[in-house]
Each structure stands twice: as structure tokens, then as C-alpha cells.
């Protein structure tokens, strides 16, 4: 077994090393990435797209289709995760399947009626958003650990809790800044989405899942999860109406173009962030 693995490693590594060895030196001005299509972006990007940040110009304009499909891929990944049957993985803490309404799979032996809300909401008749459940409310339900609103609180170090709570507003502010300044500085929708999700997950780990989950309104979640592809589709359609080409931008109408870019960035940030956060919630449940 071992000699064969070694042989395989060598066989894979040799072409890779040979390929890397033939790469042009770092920062070489005549490297293909600087002379081929990149040079055109740098020379004419601002004039052709009317965007101030060339990275944004490439992402949303030159490579708009790629970004569109990329957003769809992220959305599909979440859909695939949600479609996984619950309770098939080995679960140390109780093997009961969780009362999720969203997974389109036959539930194992969950005795609860499936709610129509596609959210981690149990079917227990409690007012929405009442995360602070009194203890005796749990007695009504058959198994308390099935209720996703009850936080599975792991003891968190006070230092960690303090630091996270201290930093969370600044992280959120940083994400907002990246979103709104993304057209002139590094950053943009995807980065803002990742930082938003990081804030959410950090808070979720420290404060408990239930309190973090309440940050995203339950009724809006299906729309928020799909808002990135939806925003792209909307902007693509608007561009089609305005310019005659799918995902086109009216480069002469500066206001319209900025508005379209803005909607796209907000859609990416919201949709991406909610998708990452939902992945976290889904795994924790």
C-alpha cells in the first residue's frame, strides 16, 4: 500500500512542480496575466464599465455571469445541506431527529406534525420570537432537546464572552463599511457577507443559538436565503430592459448604474451572510 501511495504522490507532484517551475517570476511585467486580459481591464476598465473599483468592475461587469452562477452555487449548497435527512448522522446527544420543517425528507419517527414554515421552528404553540422560554414551558413538550429555541448552552469563558460582545458591534460596522465602501476600497458584498456571518456565528456561540437566531426574522429567512440570486436576476433583467443585453449596465447613466451595483452588493451581502449563518444554525441544531 505504502509504496503505491508514494508513487502516486510523486506522479502527481512531478507535473505540478514542473509547472510551477515554468511560471514567470513574481511581478514580472511581461507575464501573461499582466499582458493578456488583465492589461485591458486596467487600461479600459474604468472607461468601459464606469466603476471606480476594478475588482468590482471585473466581478460584476466583465465576469458578471460567473458571479451570478457563483451566487447560485452558494444557494444550491445551502439547499443541499437542508435536504440532508436529519438524524442519520451519529449524534451523541440524543438520537431523536430535530423538528425541522425545512428538510424535504421524510422524518424518521418524529411524533410532531411538520409545520409548514420552512424554518427551525418547532410546532409548539408559542409566540414567535419568545426565546426566553420559562422552564415550565419545556415540560409540555415531549423532549426538551427537540426544541430548537432552547439554547444548548455550552459554558463559555467570561473572557471569551466579554471579548466577543465587545467586538461584535465593531465587526458588524466593519462589514457595513466594506459593503458601502466596496466600490472604491477593497471589500464588497462577498467579504461583507462573510464578516456578517462571522459576527452572527461568534454571537451564536457565546449567547446561545436561540438568541442569535432571533436576529434574523423567521418569516423573512426563505427570501433572505435566496436574495443574492434574486437580486442578480432582478438586476440582469433591469439591465436587459435598459441596454438590451442580459446583465448589461447603462454606463452612460451613472446614477442608474450605481443603483444597480448597490442593489447587487446588498443582495450578495445579505444573501451570502444569511446562507452562511443558516449553515451554522443547521449544524448546531
Amino acid at each position, binding site marked *: 500500500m505504502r509504496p503505491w501511495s508514494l508513487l502516486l504522490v510523486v506522479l502527481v507532484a512531478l507535473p505540478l512542480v514542473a509547472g510551477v517551475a515554468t511560471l514567470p517570476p513574481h511581478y514580472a511585467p511581461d507575464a501573461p496575466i499582466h499582458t493578456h486580459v488583465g492589461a485591458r481591464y486596467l487600461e479600459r476598465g474604468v472607461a468601459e464599465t464606469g466603476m471606480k473599483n476594478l*475588482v468590482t468592475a471585473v466581478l460584476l461587469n466583465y465576469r458578471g455571469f460567473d458571479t451570478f452562477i457563483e451566487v447560485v452555487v452558494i444557494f444550491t449548497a445551502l439547499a443541499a445541506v437542508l435536504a440532508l435527512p436529519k438524524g442519520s448522522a451519529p449524534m451523541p446527544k440524543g438520537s431523536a431527529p430535530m423538528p425541522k420543517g425545512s428538510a424535504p425528507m421524510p422524518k424518521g419517527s418524529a411524533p410532531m406534525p411538520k409545520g409548514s414554515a420552512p424554518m427551525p421552528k418547532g410546532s409548539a404553540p408559542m409566540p414567535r420570537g419568545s426565546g426566553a422560554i420559562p422552564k415550565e414551558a419545556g415540560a409540555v413538550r415531549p423532549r426538551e432537546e427537540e426544541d430548537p429555541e432552547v439554547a444548548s448552552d455550552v459554558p463559555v469563558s467570561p473572557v471569551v464572552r466579554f471579548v466577543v460582545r465587545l467586538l461584535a458591534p465593531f465587526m458588524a460596522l466593519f462589514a457595513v463599511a466594506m459593503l458601502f465602501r466596496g466600490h472604491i476600497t*477593497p471589500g*464588497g458584498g*462577498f*467579504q461583507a457577507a*462573510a464578516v456578517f456571518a462571522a459576527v452572527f*456565528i461568534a454571537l451564536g456561540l457565546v449567547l446561545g443559538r436561540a438568541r442569535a437566531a432571533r436576529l434574523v426574522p423567521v418569516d423573512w429567512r426563505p427570501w433572505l436565503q435566496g436574495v443574492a440570486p434574486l437580486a442578480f436576476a432582478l438586476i440582469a433583467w433591469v439591465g436587459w430592459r435598459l441596454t438590451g443585453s442580459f446583465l448589461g449596465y447603462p454606463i452612460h447613466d451613472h446614477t442608474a448604474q450605481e443603483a444597480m451595483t448597490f442593489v447587487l452588493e446588498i443582495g450578495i451581502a445579505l444573501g451570502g451572510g444569511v446562507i452562511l449563518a443558516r449553515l*451554522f444554525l443547521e449544524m*448546531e441544531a
Partner: protein
Amino acid sequence: MSDVFDIVMLTLLIATAVSVARARDLLAAVVIFSMYSLTMTLVWQHRGAPDVAMTEAAVGAGVTTVLFLITIARTTRREKP
């Protein structure tokens, strides 16, 4: 100076990558992998790609680490021999 930084960072990358592959303790592997992402962030920044560096820091070192940790918490910490 720039070459020294690159050499140190790339050596660290290889070292962390090999350690992740060799680690039997999956928790240690996740932590080292997070360090790999952080090193990669510095490399991206050094190569003049701040956008990618930000994404790597937030997704690579932040979110995926948490997801891996949750997975370990729900499965097992030791790799099967």
C-alpha cells in the same frame, strides 16, 4: 526582504498543511488548519490581493473553523486508526 517574508510564509504553509494531514487529533487539525488560513491571508495581502485576503480571513479562518468544530462536537474527536 520581500523574499524572506515569502519564504517564511510558504514554509509555514507547507508545515501547517503537513501537520493537518498528520494530526490524529481532529481538534488539533482544525486549529492548525485555521492557522494555515491565517498564513494564507498574509500571503494574499502580501501579493496585493486584499479582497481575497479578507475573504480568506473571514471564511477560511473564521467560519469554516467554527463549522468544523461543530462537526467534531457532534461526531468524534479522534480519527479512526
